[in-house]
């Protein structure tokens, strides 16, 4: 069967099991879109308002489905608009294939209209990329792109296809879905070493990250915690991999982590890191991080072992296999002193939270917002966020019972990520999706409201409006002498009216009762809804590790007067 390059693109996507793609047409992808025109019954294309939104949508889609997210954009500005989305996927290890058109090969390198070297630009922010100059290599490149994107530690791959390659024809034979590269099994001696460290320890802290989320290893992790009588903490990327109702789960640790989780991490004599990378936001000062504790690290990416933190046992390879082997070999043992200690930490955390609740003078405290969200969502509801204070509150206060229900930009911290990602997450999960955002982040890519309305997606946007860039303001309050340089937005945007102008339903809430009511109604809506929630500008995200500090320096409460 002889097909054109653009038909091969579509056939390869279908062959690789792709059912939904996100994108935006343009001059150098006209042929791909033309081929898509005939494949509308086999592949669903979601047209966004901006290529960045499409990239974030492919990312959000991949996070909730575990499938490879696909985004298509034209050359030049279309391609460069993907860059933030690709970098975001890279930092959070999200499997993605980005397909871009480029000018015909005869015009490459001549600064032609809408020409950029997108493979050059994305070199450091992709796992790999291709500039396909030969039609004979197109199908192989696309298949390999999927293979690389989903293998080992997942990530984004970009395939750039000049227009003449899209037009050229070649014989095409469909193949099956590509298998991931096989993962190394860890040597028995390494497993034995990890088992010995666990058997000898008194205070084990199991520390799970994005790897546990992407491999869905929550059950095994919980089984290990039972067997060794340990507790579990997670990184930001590990959220939703362990049910929040699980009694041994202390939640996220790190810069804005739960007090109990951060303290248990500090006090543990053994840290069992699974699919984590010891990010600076999680460790604080690496010189002081968990001094005296032994560390075991399981990861499929060998480059993460001994990169930020030196470990005692590095198990490089299939983390699911390693975890199962450790689980079956390790001694079943109760550790009553440690158990008592982490239970006490949970109690301490409750006391601190109560103290902070009492100190709050807000009419509608952020914590309350999340309590109400928790009440109205079910275990299948996806929570997406943007970046800033609201994101950290979401990470701290949202209750998750099922894996892959939290969609948020961790590594890159991309403001403007949320709405695009929520669209992708809704399309992928078919479930009600709640986007928690702030007025700063939402302002960056709110144009995607148009997309949500066009496709009538059941997305509830909870916009926490404090009129300031809250997280930066928090730093300015605490570390920059309250010099609020450019963080007071002072905008006159009427968000409910704006949402209505886009065709979405809208509510506003300033009190607990109003938000409760708005949320109840919004959750019943079939299409997109925006709820603007007025919150205080001087709410803090707590606890907080100060910059350069370690867990010992944790700030758990702040008296407003102290910052005067």
């Amino acid at each position: 069967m002889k097909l054109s390059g653009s038909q091969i693109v579509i056939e390869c996507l279908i062959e690789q099991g792709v059912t939904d793609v996100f994108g935006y047409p343009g001059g150098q992808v006209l042929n791909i879109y033309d081929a898509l025109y005939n494949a509308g019954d086999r592949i669903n294309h979601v047209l966004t308002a901006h290529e960045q939104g499409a990239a974030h949508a492919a990312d959000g889609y991949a996070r909730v489905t575990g499938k490879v997210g696909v985004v298509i954009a034209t050359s030049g500005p279309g391609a460069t608009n993907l860059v933030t989305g690709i970098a975001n996927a890279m930092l959070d290890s999200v499997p993605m294939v980005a397909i871009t058109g480029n000018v015909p090969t005869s015009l490459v390198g001549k600064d032609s209209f809408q020409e950029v070297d997108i493979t050059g630009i994305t070199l450091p922010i992709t796992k790999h990329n291709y500039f396909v100059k030969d039609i004979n290599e197109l199908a192989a490149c696309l298949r390999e792109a999927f293979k690389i994107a989903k293998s080992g530690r997942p990530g984004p791959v970009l395939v750039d296809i000049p227009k003449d390659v899209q037009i050229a024809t070649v014989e095409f034979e469909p193949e099956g879905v590509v298998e991931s590269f096989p993962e190394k099994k860890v040597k028995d001696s390494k497993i034995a070493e990890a088992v010995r460290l666990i058997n000898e320890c008194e205070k084990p802290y199991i520390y799970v990250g994005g790897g546990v989320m992407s491999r869905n290893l929550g059950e095994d992790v919980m089984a290990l915690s039972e067997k060794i009588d340990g507790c579990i903490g997670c990184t930001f990327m590990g959220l939703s991999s362990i049910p929040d109702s699980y009694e041994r789960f202390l939640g996220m640790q790190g810069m804005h982590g739960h007090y109990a989780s951060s303290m248990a991490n500090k006090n543990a004599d053994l840290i069992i890191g699974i699919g984590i990378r010891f990010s600076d936001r999680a460790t604080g000062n690496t010189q002081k991080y968990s001094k005296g504790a032994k560390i075991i690290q399981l990861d499929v990416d060998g480059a993460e072992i001994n990169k930020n933190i030196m470990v005692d046992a590095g198990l490089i390879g299939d983390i699911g296999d390693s975890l199962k082997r450790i689980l079956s070999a390790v001694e079943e043992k109760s550790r009553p002193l440690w158990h008592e200690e982490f239970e006490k930490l949970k109690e301490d955390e409750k006391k601190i939270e109560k103290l902070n609740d009492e100190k709050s003078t807000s009419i509608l405290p952020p914590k309350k917002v999340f309590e109400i969200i928790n009440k109205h969502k079910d275990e299948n509801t996806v929570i997406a966020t943007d970046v800033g204070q609201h994101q950290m509150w979401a990470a701290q206060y949202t209750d998750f019972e099922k894996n892959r229900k939290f969609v948020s930009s961790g590594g890159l911290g991309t403001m403007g990520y949320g709405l695009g990602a929520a669209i992708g997450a809704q399309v992928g999960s078919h479930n009600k999706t709640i986007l928690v955002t702030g007025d700063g982040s939402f302002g960056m890519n709110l144009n995607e409201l148009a997309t949500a309305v066009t496709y009538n997606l059941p997305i509830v946007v909870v916009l926490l409006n404090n009129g300031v860039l809250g997280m930066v303001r928090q730093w300015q309050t605490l570390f920059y002498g309250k010099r609020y340089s450019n963080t007071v937005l002072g905008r006159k945007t009427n968000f409910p009216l704006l949402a209505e102008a886009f065709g979405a339903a809208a509510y506003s809430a300033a009190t607990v009762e109003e938000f409760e009511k708005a949320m109840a109604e919004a959750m019943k809506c079939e299409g997109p809804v925006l709820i603007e929630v007025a919150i205080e500008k001087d709410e803090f995200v707590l606890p907080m590790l100060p910059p350069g500090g370690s867990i010992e320096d944790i700030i758990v409460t702040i008296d407003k007067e102290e910052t005067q």
Partner: protein
Amino acid sequence: MSKYVIAVYVDNKPGVLTRVSSMFTRRGFNIDTLTVGEIENPAYSRITISLSGDEYTKNQIVVQLNKLHNVQMVKVLSDESTVKRELMIIKMKNTPNNRAEIMAAAEVYKGKIIDYSVSTISVEVTGEPVKIDAFIELMMPLGILEMCRTGIVAIERGAETMFSQE
């Protein structure tokens, strides 16, 4: 700070060198020299990297190289059992006062006169980088017009090869 030599087999494709060098820039690794050339199997090229750094940096370079899709094999060559060579071509002023000294030094260093004109002498010297350094030192007062060095190529002594890894 130690000196390390790392040998890398990569796919012989356009852009692979850029991927390797871009990774060095992004990760902040400083290297001393980098050479690249095709091997007996034209599907691959061999890159030889020399660097001065600590063990952490050396290890990071190895693991980060291994993550690149076009990198097929990475091996740190042990300092004591590796033969290292570098080639230099140096162009000197040719004057009655320095001519004899240049020729004598070239002979002692087993260099070759590869070009001779009324006003210039070009010498080719091969050897370990320290030998090249020493030769440059000798030439310094005699009027260097231009010079270039290839960077290190290296191969292990005896039966060890790229393929005999643990």
